[in-house]
């Protein structure tokens, strides 16, 4: 059973379409075609609320304000109005994201996923991704359970990527924050360290090259 999402959208065609897409993306969507205040206890049943602003008889901002009085459930605003004042107001009232129509269903699903991923992004001392495990405290690195010996720079490089798994990190940032600026502070040197690190980690794309940016810690699967 997927995570429960509440959709409040008055347009029947759009509401049905969104519910369908969310269902296909593995979420369990509940759709209200009318706006009404959401009780805090009711909100606790959902992992995320997708809220349309222009609803018949009520205004989405009012629902949001009432909801925020007793709940921290993430809220993604949908609006046909592309106005900064609306957006700023919604964010100030406690909305977590704001999407303007028109949008691709894929875009919505991507935003929902990004929002639900967030709590997992908490700092942790050990990162496990695919067959790779990095213990940031004890400086222990294992691939498929086997320990891997790394130099200080190699470990720092891996740790920098492991702190934000899945996020691309620029080469410039890695050069400035991982390499010793006195001795070896060039992007060329960085690439050499990366290539050594990749060799040590073995087959599988643990460290991905991101075009135009730098590197990213991947799940070790093929490209």
């Amino acid at each position: 059973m997927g995570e429960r999402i509440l959709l409040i959208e008055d347009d029947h065609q759009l509401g049905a379409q969104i519910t369908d897409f969310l269902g296909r993306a593995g979420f369990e969507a509940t759709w209200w075609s009318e706006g009404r205040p959401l009780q805090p206890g009711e909100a606790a049943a959902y992992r995320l609320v997708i809220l349309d602003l222009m609803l018949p008889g009520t205004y989405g901002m009012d629902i949001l304000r009432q909801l925020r009085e007793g709940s921290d459930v993430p809220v993604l605003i949908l609006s046909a109005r592309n106005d900064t004042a609306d957006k700023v107001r919604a964010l100030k009232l406690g909305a977590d994201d704001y999407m303007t129509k028109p949008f691709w269903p894929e875009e919505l699903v991507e935003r929902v996923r990004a929002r639900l991923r967030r709590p997992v992004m908490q700092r942790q001392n050990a990162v496990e991704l695919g067959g790779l495990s990095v213990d940031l405290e004890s400086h222990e690195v294992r691939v498929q359970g086997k320990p891997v010996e790394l130099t200080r720079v190699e470990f720092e490089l891996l740790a920098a990527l492991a702190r934000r798994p899945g996020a691309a990190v620029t080469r410039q940032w890695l050069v400035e924050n991982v390499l010793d600026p006195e001795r070896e502070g060039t992007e060329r040197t960085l690439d050499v360290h990366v290539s050594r690190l990749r060799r040590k980690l073995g087959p599988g794309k643990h460290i991905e090259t991101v075009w135009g940016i730098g590197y990213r810690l991947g799940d070790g699967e093929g490209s």
Partner: protein
Amino acid sequence: MKLRMRLALTTAAVALAIALGLAWLHWTFETSERESILAEYALTQMLQGGRERCEASPSTWSHEQSFGPRGPPPGGPNGPPPPPPSRNWFGRKEPGGPPPPPGGTVLFAYDTELVARNPAAPPLHQKLATAMRKGRETAGRSPGLDDRGMRELVVRMPWASGPCAFVLARQWGPGPRGRRSPTPPPDMLVFPSLIALAGVLLTVGPVVRRLRQLTREVRTSVSSAYQGHITLQGNDEVTELARAFDEAGREVRAQMDLKEQREQTLRSFLENTTHDVMIPLTVLQGHLAELQQRAARGEPVEASVVAAASQEAHYMAALIHNLGAAARLEAGEPAVQRAPVDLNALVERCMSRHRPIARQQDVALEYAVPEEPVRVLGDDILIEQAVSNVIYNAVRYNARGGHVAVVLERQPGSTFRLRVLDDGPGIPENELSRIVERRVRGNAARTRGPGGNGLGLNIAWKVTVLHGWRLELGRSEYGGLQVDFLGELLSEAEPGGTRRTPGIG
């Protein structure tokens, strides 16, 4: 009420107030003069034998004398002594001898205790007795206005002892000038008032005429949409009023011209917009028609046709967002909101918006943001539109298998750099400098080929200018285009606004 009537009434009210003031002054001077004559008369009578007669028989002494309007010639053997020089209404000495006290005058004597030995003498009024005890030389009063103008005056005698130490002079009849009217002479009040009134009305006449002319001209000007002329002559308040009307008219005319110009711009904007939206809409309809025909024939749907249709829809959405942004930029500062903006979240939103289309075009779209959110002060929607345009162009005009990267970085000195680079065909070097400054609605801007992205880049450029940032275009190290947004970060001292959202991948 008309101006002329109002001025006449005001003049009459002021003239009346002046007349009353003059009457009071007149009465004051007359009383003073009358008392002075009476005092001189009483003193002279007593000095010329009156004292001796009074002190010889104080229980019967009194002295009465009646005069005609001007009395007998002064200095006669039985007549009264010449009275002291009188003063006229304004206190100036009149030429010729002083007149005697007119009407009937009776003298009564009082001792040092202010008591009369003569039973026929009236008891001294309290007010007069008090004034004498205080050491005054004379004190007078009028018993009443209806008492035929009677006036009482007590005079202290130079000897200050005996039964005749004080003398009360009682006088009936008109004042020293023989008039009982409390008002000043009519020639001094009425004529100046009439002259003033006539003067005011004469002066007001031309002013009223000019005001009427001004009113006519203003009405004509209004009816001719402020095209009429307003006469400016002279250098007074009416001319200033006319000048103010003239200036107001010119200002209104300028505003109307501006409005007309804006309406013209709006009309051409709408025409261009319709054109811009109709083209992709037509293409989209074409794709949909093809899909429909294939479906009707039971043929499999071709992925490339769906992708093309999707791209048209995406293009239209981008176009409409840009038209909205252009309208807000045209409207100027009041339409632009400034609030703290989280650029990390903004980049992520742009990513999620363009990823579906990039995927369809087989263009790799990647991004990187710093761990700590990069915050700036600005208009969230406009900045997002600007960044979105640059990313969309990079995706749209790239070849299949191409790359687009978006990198947000903090730079030294509290600045940021948001870089969008691609490995597409790019833009020729000689066009780079002028591409962003191209007029939004130029014909070339509406061409949909590579480089025909004038509206999007122009909006990006305008948004950076509006925020005091820089937009730099150059060739990327991978051969395509590199666009850099460079600007200042939000200082920590400024109040926060939006909630912080950590960057994710």
